[in-house]
């Protein structure tokens, strides 16, 4: 059965005519071609498909789009800072920090790690390393041993703090 579903993704409205049983992950990737969001199991085990829904990091493979209509969905494609026109202005400090620290090796878990880290920093701008470990513990990474990811989140937190102080 298909249905017209209204989704607000990265600040933009999308009307999608799609099967009601498809997951948010599938609709993002297959219907909207927002392929930045990844999948590693589609069973809610690996964390690779995390997106933000109203600021919370949620596994998109366990969400039906009808449940999240008109809510604020944010994916990796919307993480960069945008201007009022919708143009990307600059990378989010988390993205810069991930690149600089070598927090992405294969990069496949990066979108989920980044979105989950953003949810953390939005709530707790100055997390300690244990809080970062706790926040990211639902997303698996097989390349880095997590060290560089944690260092990148720490760097970004410092960056965000500095920005806030200047602002």
């Amino acid at each position, binding site marked *: 059965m298909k249905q017209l579903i209204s989704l607000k993704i990265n600040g933009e409205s999308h009307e999608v005519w799609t099967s009601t049983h498809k997951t948010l992950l599938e609709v993002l*990737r*297959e219907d909207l*071609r927002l*392929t*930045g*969001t*990844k*999948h*590693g*199991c*589609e*069973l809610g*085990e*690996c964390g*690779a498909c995390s997106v933000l829904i109203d600021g919370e990091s949620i596994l998109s493979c366990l969400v039906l789009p009808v449940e999240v209509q008109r809510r604020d969905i944010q*994916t*990796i*494609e919307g*993480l*960069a800072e945008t201007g009022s026109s919708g143009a990307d202005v600059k*990378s989010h400090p*988390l*993205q*810069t920090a*991930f*690149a*600089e*620290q*070598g*927090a*992405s*090796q*294969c*990069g*496949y*878990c*990066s*979108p989920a790690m*980044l979105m989950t880290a953003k949810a953390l920093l939005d709530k707790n701008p100055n997390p300690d390393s244990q809080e*970062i*470990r*706790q926040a*990211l*513990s*639902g*997303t*698996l*990474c*097989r*390349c*880095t*041993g*997590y*060290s*560089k*990811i*944690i260092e990148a989140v720490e760097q970004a937190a410092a960056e965000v703090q500095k920005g806030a102080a200047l602002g």
Partner: protein
Amino acid sequence: MAKKLKAVNDFQANLIWIGKSWAQVDGLAKAKGETVYADDMFLPRMLYAKMLRSPHPHARIKSIDVSRALKRPGVVAVMTGKELPIPFGILPVSQDEEALCVEKVRMIGDPVAAVAAIDEETAEAALEDIVVEYEILPSILSIEEGLKELEESELADAQIHKYADSGNIHKQVALEFGDTESGFAEADFLREELFYYEGNTHLPMEQHSAVGQHGADGRVTLWSSTQTPHYVHRALAKVLEMPASQIRVIATPVGGGFGGKTDPFQHEIVVCKLAMMTGRPVKMTLTREEVFYTHRGRHPVLMWVKAGMKSDGSITALHFRNFLDGGAYGSYGVASTFYTGALQTVTYPIANYKFEAMRVFTNKAPCGPKRGHGTPQPRFALEVLLDKFAEDLNLDPAELRLRHLIPDNSLTVNHLTVTTNGLGECIRKVTEASKFKQKRTASISGKGFGLGCGSYLSGAGLPIYWNKMPHSGVQIKIDRGGGVTVFCGSTDIGQGSNSVLAGIVAEELGIHLQHVIVVTADTDLTPVDLGSYSSRVTLMTGNAAIAAARPLREKILTAASEVLKIPAGELTIRNGNIGKLNSSGERVSFEDAVQWAETKFGTLGSVGSYTPPRRGGKFKGAGVGPSPNYSYSACVAEVTCDAETGLYRVDKIWLAHDIGQAINEKLVIGQVEGSVYMGLSEAMMEEQVYRTGKSGSSGIAGPAGLHKIPSMLDYKSLTSLDMPEVETILVETHDPEGPYGAKEAGQGPLLPVMPAIANAIYNAVGVRVDEVPITPEKIFQGLQDLNKGKSGRIGPKKFPNVTFPEPLHIDPPSSG
């Protein structure tokens, strides 16, 4: 956290990129979600494919009826193995796989038919329309069953592959270097030990995925998450019966490999054939469960080791006898078998060495190369064994090893050439940093320190298929605008090989990294590089890149010399400018000099290639083990173990790695940390295990031979909360074979981790776990054993009594 020890000389002081830390060239794209992995591809009119897989571990296929599937709306094509009967496999000696099984299935998960449909859901539903009639055959599910001799009458049903050496023994090896018996006679201490190393899998975050397309020009293009596009290219040409010139293989960015995407795979061949049958692009992405069946991971290995040692700690003789549980297909198994014997010799001198091994076929997912390929298992045994000997000799385990190290520029007992060995420095640094000698006490306190060491090759000395061509090729073209494009078949699997390539070319041409464009892993565009396996890329593509860049540098300097009227020998390129070496006088931009060079010489392009030196002995089997150079690693683990429950925590890991010369320090540290993580995870918890039981039996949870835990929740791996602090120390030995002196970093640092944990647990609570994984349950059993006044050793107790063939006797190099 990392420290680096560096021998500074003039050459190094002048390097701009090499040895420094810079961001991966594709790092920001990954952090922005821009990187297009195979499953992110959507082509117009693309179909989706699924494969029907066997529910039986071993069965004859009597018939397959696909007629109902073909009638399902949305299904565009259905195929069976009859469409592609030509077998393939990564090694020429084991071409034993079929795109879809024809006569029989050899494991649960073996594919028998494939469907292409307008969407994944329809394809999956259509699999249920296919009717397969099977005749169940006896299944072989353990090393012991695989070793059983088969009567002539049993062969037809119970033999998994007809080409096996005998019965279900795929491959047997027996080599003796020197005279081990006389070596044992000279020893003051003798030990005979059994060890077991459970199998485990790569678990890449990205499931395998491939897209096939058959173009209007008749050519087939495959995009695939593969570590070895060149070998996939060869397999496709063979199975599709097409000239290789009509096939293009593009390795998409690999979302985690670790050796698991190094074979040519069924789904890669099937999508190409379905694209040819339908005239439409076809994609197949494996589910996580299917990835567990595809496997090619760590072989379970049962080991018997006998070693003799003099009271000074020198090893008089070592005898390894290994049984490998190979699973249903050959894969890299013959190489894996040799690797369980080849590299024990490159760390400490061994006077006499005997190595015997058998790999058996079993009806389980095929094993192959996982990070460390065949060496983690025997290295675990050897390093735990040395810990036991240290106790016999009442010596510090670090001291025992430091007394006996393979010297630089020497030959091992099995004829491997060691150019530089930084192990001594690694042991000294890692024990100093961890205060190993001060903190490690003999008393049982629940706190333990353990040491482990290891060595790995920087690239296999021989290619997978016999030829004398280069192992890596690099092509460079320079645009008039100063942009430098580097073409190479190497494949970035996250280890940073694209960054290594760009950094080396930037260094050689004296320009900024941002002017170097890297085009890799595309058989139409890039010269052959054998692929991302055996830790070969930095050394081999690095050397090829230097070879390609230097003639261009010469041309640019020559042209600049004529215009500037300064002898070329007095000029250099630095920071994108050409000027005098002493920085005096006029400077011109790289871009201007490139235009002068193009005016003088014509279009600027060059090629460079690298072939490893021919080394190794002359005996059969000497092809596995030689490498241009070997990396060395030493690891100290600190653990806290509860002496009642066996629960333990790893507090910290110190790892020193002989990298030769870091190309990009940050990426090297990333490889070390990733290796430590993967080593710890398999030391502590990872297991690829199957339901046991009588052949053909079936319990409530499924039949014997079924994977017990094919999911990321049940197959345990370390999370960010479990991962301890890692202190990395890089030791630089500046090896003459490596580019700027470099060695590998991707695999070696994993090797010492597992034995360091085992030795630390023993130091903490007095329990010897002579097997991997080292779980709290096993430690608990050991503690109970200790409480009963017994040894507290947990590990294999039985070893199959099998007669090995008479070994091939080879004289050690010194006596020849």
